[in-house]
């Protein structure tokens, strides 16, 4: 992370703050079990990298979607506050109403991208009941490293047959290659 090329083409810090609040609301099991911070960090980091590669049309649409999501609570739930300043319960009601409204397409776009990145976190993936190797690839079936570090190894190019040895086949990790 941290490349200027990515910074220019991806979400702003304000948009990321909105995305984080949406993800925390979307994926919480209930009020007593909020989404762990580490999963949100992972999802936001991946979202940022992902958006740096989407086309201009999608980037513009996403920008508009975050703007609407942040500023439309008054229209749907009558609260004169930005989305990020709502209580957890109000956020959930607002997103539910938005999803069922004629502007549901706004929610679809954001929910799709957030689901893409959130459910790649090994713990979130495990929570779905997925128990196969295909999704993460054979490289992640080896070793006893904790799930998150197993995900990150792609960025540092290990040899899948022996995680201790660097691979000669993969290039050194760069933001564009691994981001």
């Amino acid at each position, binding site marked *: 992370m941290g490349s200027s090329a990515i910074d220019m083409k991806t979400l702003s810090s304000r948009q990321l703050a909105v995305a984080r609040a949406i993800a925390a609301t979307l994926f919480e099991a209930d009020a007593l079990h909020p989404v762990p911070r580490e999963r949100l960090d992972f999802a936001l980091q991946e979202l940022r990298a992902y958006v740096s590669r*989407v*086309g201009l049309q999608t980037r513009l649409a996403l920008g508009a979607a975050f703007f609407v999501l942040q500023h439309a609570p008054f229209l749907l739930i009558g609260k004169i506050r930005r989305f990020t300043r709502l209580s957890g319960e109000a956020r959930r009601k607002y997103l539910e109403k938005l999803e069922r409204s004629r502007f*549901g397409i706004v929610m679809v776009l954001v929910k799709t991208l957030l*689901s893409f990145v959130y459910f790649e976190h090994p713990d979130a993936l495990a929570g779905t009941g997925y128990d196969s190797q*295909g999704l993460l690839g054979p490289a992640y079936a080896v070793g006893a490293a904790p799930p998150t570090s197993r995900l990150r190894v792609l960025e540092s190019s290990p040899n899948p047959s022996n995680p201790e040895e660097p691979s000669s086949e*993969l290039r050194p990790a760069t933001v564009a290659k691994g981001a």
Partner: protein
Amino acid sequence: MYRTPTPILEGRDHPGPLTAEADVAIVGSGAAGSVAAKILAEAGHSVIVLEEGGNHTPDEYARYRPTETFRHMYRDAGTTAAIGLGDTPLISILAGRTVGGSSTLTGGVIFRIPEAILDSWVKDHGLVDYTPEKLEEAYLSVERETFVETVPENMRSASTALFGEGAKKLGYELKSMKRNTRGCLGSSRCNFGCPNKAKMSVDVTYLATARSYGAQVISDCRVTGLEIEGGRATGVKGELLDAERRKRGKVHVRARKVLIAGSALSTPLLLKGAGVGRWTRAVGGNLTLHPGFRVAAYFDRDVSAWKGALQSAYSDAFEDEGITLNSVFAPINVLAAMLPGVGPELHAYTSNMRELATFGAMIHDEGGGRVWRMPGGKGVYTYRMGRRDKLRMLKGIRILAETFFAAGAKEVLLPVFGVRPIRSVDELRFLEDERIPARRFECVTFHPLGTARMGLDPSTSVVKPSGETYDVEGLYVIDGSVFPSSIGVNSQMPIMAVATKLAWGIRDRWQSKRVAA
């Protein structure tokens, strides 16, 4: 004679500008470009293949997570879309941008072009060389090169088996698909690069063989223009891209023949940029998409739909109505995006994905799309869905949902935004109302075709039956752009077979000229 394959020259690593000369320059390394590269290199011609995407080896993409594959190997990270005009959904177009093109990212499904379609090509477009008999040799050649095999029933996932049970109860059967695979382990993530190197996509078949015959592949190389002198194609120009897709050096390739195989989305952009078809509006028009959709269903039992082949069975029982049913699955994170609800409700669905089954369908569409070239050369895609096609979508959604209920589903999720989960067949009645706005359909396609179509009439076609453009000598289009109509089946094999036929023609005419000279 086979040699060690030439290394792929990666534009991102190449210092400075690049100039080259060859008999043939091929734009695009996907299903069509790779086939032509192999055939022409084998015939002794010097061939350069220029690919806009990066070079991702099977070892690399085997380890990519789905979003990494999206970012590195799909055009626009998988977010390309056709904008719906009128009563039309936004249609997501998944297309590869990598060495090997979309063939590295499809389910590997192999269908021949239905005979009824070829009949219409002959009758309506005068393509007398495109009968099933005259394509047979090309089909056999592709099947040999890409290891086509029938998916055994024991490779079907429980999701597909359940759907098959429902189909049987409703009076129709599933048939086994053919795919280009060798040693498939059923990891159910073909669309994100095979994790087991079992898919025989063109990067490991045709293109590898072409490189053994000396063809040179340049990746990270965006072709921006065609060079035409005195009405004849003489080469291409473009730019090398770095790993972050920024320009880093110019490319100039002089060639005696230029073959364009950039897909139905990109090929018309190059042709329009060169002024081809300026007076007819045929270039970029006639875009067909095979709009596809899937229905998901929850059962009271463990389905674990990710265990088995991603695509293994199909039904042509509704072919007369323009609907083909295909088994399909998607990675968990992609499927989760279609589940309803927020917070606890969404969690209830995502935490039970073991009980989720899916099946898909696509429609044989009329072709209401167009590729527009914007200033700077970028493309914008529009699509207007005909009433007939909208009705086909509604019918297809209903068939899928009814079949799942027949199989015992407790809840069915429809690809219609804003519609709550359905719990009985009776609740599907609303699909009979054609006033449902089509923009609420969730729609995706892997098969854009037909934006530089082949035909005998230069006023409505872009290329001759030989693939050569009417406007420019020595300039050929060999990809799915040349299809004069939608085909109603997965397009990988049809594109490869037509490219084979066109490349054989180019090779044979060249040899005849040499002999005559």
